[in-house]
């Protein structure tokens, strides 16, 4: 007998007979009167920086003022082509190792933990938000949800090969509980909150 059928048989034999019903998730409250303020506060607490902008021109200005343009900057957003390259999505992912800044969009954000949901469809490449030294993600203010319950309602049956919630810059506290930003992934995260 294969291990699979052996394991499954043993599980069938040993699992409890009484079936516990799945709970109703709608009993969990998901109200938050001020999602935007909560979002910004939580993001700052975990080392990210919220930047409110009125349009792409303000994002362009921010990039010009805060990043060295002679370094490699990549984006998936055509409106930002003046400061960042768009032509990298089909490259070998290893070639992104010298990227200084990646600017991507997200589907939505979550106020309670400041996480942003991104998937294959808008990532360009899966490794992009991890391998870049710095990361900037933009989200529409109207797409900030209160809790993770709402987040998964929004995701629903969305089809993707890979999706991830990103909350703040990469970090570690593995050395004597001292917080250090930039463990393996981005050293800093800017979240552009778009009107």
């Amino acid at each position, binding site marked *: 007998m294969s*291990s699979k059928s052996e394991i499954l048989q043993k599980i069938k034999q040993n699992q409890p007979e009484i079936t516990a019903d799945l709970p109703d998730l709608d009993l969990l409250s998901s109200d938050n009167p001020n999602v935007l303020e909560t979002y910004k506060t939580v993001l700052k607490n975990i080392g990210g920086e919220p930047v409110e902008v009125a349009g792409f021109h303000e994002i362009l200005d921010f990039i010009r003022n805060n990043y060295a343009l002679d370094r490699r900057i990549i984006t998936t957003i055509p409106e930002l082509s003046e400061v960042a390259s768009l032509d990298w999505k089909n490259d070998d*992912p290893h070639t992104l190792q010298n990227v200084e800044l990646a600017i991507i969009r997200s589907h939505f954000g979550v106020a309670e933990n400041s996480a942003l949901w991104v998937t294959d469809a808008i990532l360009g490449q*899966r*490794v992009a938000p*991890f391998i870049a030294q710095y990361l900037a993600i933009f989200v529409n203010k109207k797409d900030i949800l209160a809790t993770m319950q709402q987040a998964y309602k929004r995701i629903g049956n969305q089809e*993707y090969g890979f999706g*991830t919630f990103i909350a703040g810059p990469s970090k570690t506290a593995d050395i004597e509980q*001292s917080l250090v930003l*930039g463990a393996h992934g981005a050293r800093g995260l800017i979240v552009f909150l778009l009107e």
Partner: protein
Amino acid sequence: MSSKKVIEHSQAATNFNKDVERVNWHDETLWFVREKRDKSAHQIKDWELLRETASQIKNNVLSNIHDYLVEFEENAQKNGIIVHWAADAKEHNEIVHSIMAKHEVKQMVKSKSMLTEECHLNDYLAEKGIEVIDSDLGEYIVQLRKEPPSHIVLPAIHLKKEDVSETFHEHLGTEKGNIDPQYLTESARLSLRNTFLTRKVALTGVNFAIAETGEFVVCTNEGNADMGAHLADVHIACMGFEKLIPQRKHLGVFLRLLARSATGQPITTFSSHFKKPREGQEMHIVIVDNGRSTQLGREDFRNSLKCIRCGACMNTCPVYRRSGGHSYHNAVAGPIGSILAPNLDMRKNADLPFASTLCGSCTNVCPVKIDIHDQLYKWRQVLVKEGHTPTSKTIAMTTMSKILANPTIFNIVGKSGRFVMKNIPAMVNNKMNKWYDQREMPEVPEESFREWYKKNSRESIAKNNE
């Protein structure tokens, strides 16, 4: 680790406690993490309902795990993932090795997976000539030091920055005596970045696997699982079968609980959902039993399989905090480890359920409401019945029960005990007496209660007054 002789928890704890200052520091550091958890939990209005909901979902999983596993495999295969089944640690290791061998690869980068610790995968692969580099910073540190992790979430929590500095100086050539965590982390980042860029095979753990969609979720703060997986040609994910949850929407519950319970963060930096391999990539899932189906059949202990590995029970445990993770000689330490370990090897781990004060703090913080301290108590009874307790304890218990069962013997022993303690204290105040180890012996009363009662009860007073 497996080949070394196991030192019993109480002995290991005694050794750990020799350095008082360091033990106090260890204790305080973990308590600080526990306090962060409290602060974070209290900010969620529905925290208790959330725990109850998570517990109910996991109860449902336990009673339907067969069907969920079948569903998960079917969906994962539809997604283009290759699914393997391993009955035990040995088969798990062989499967992983066979994938390496098929691709003729001799190097692997690995993110945190307590399952591979449980299976001693690194040792196995090393014997086969395969080099594994652990990429989680804490795991990387302990790996360089040839130590196992001492905590499932904070693998190097037993080390001070001076220790890390020494280790990095030796292995990475960092400046001697530079103990700045920023500098040390940066050095590891540079070294590991090169590792990520050059490895063809990446192995990750699994935090949650979803039956409904065939996808799995990996949570990290560092981004190391993603760096490995998205750059490698082959991604192997290893999971104990209890990682299953029914539907995607249930992640909403577990992701709210996991990081808050673990470190007090609102969520881990990355919560990555792997559903399909990227183009040209090969993705494997190894589903492991290794004793879990046996535990599922133990009515009193099955619900230990609800564990989501947050480590909250360790951070709060007064015994863990003052004995350190290594004293548990098991991949998963602390209270939860002590109810999982006897299932894996009752004889070897018979000491662990006794490494607890049964204070119940673990049960109170558990995000999926496992009755941890009750199970520790129940394990003790099983272990005694099965004859796995130390001979000295068995003799002491049998002797005590004989004395307590017979009033005449009880009287004689009591009297001679009081005489000895009063007149020849050295006979009891010595190393043979375990009670005396960390305590003063009590003051000897002039008489026993029985003797006093004989003189002072109403009947005897009346009698004397006659």
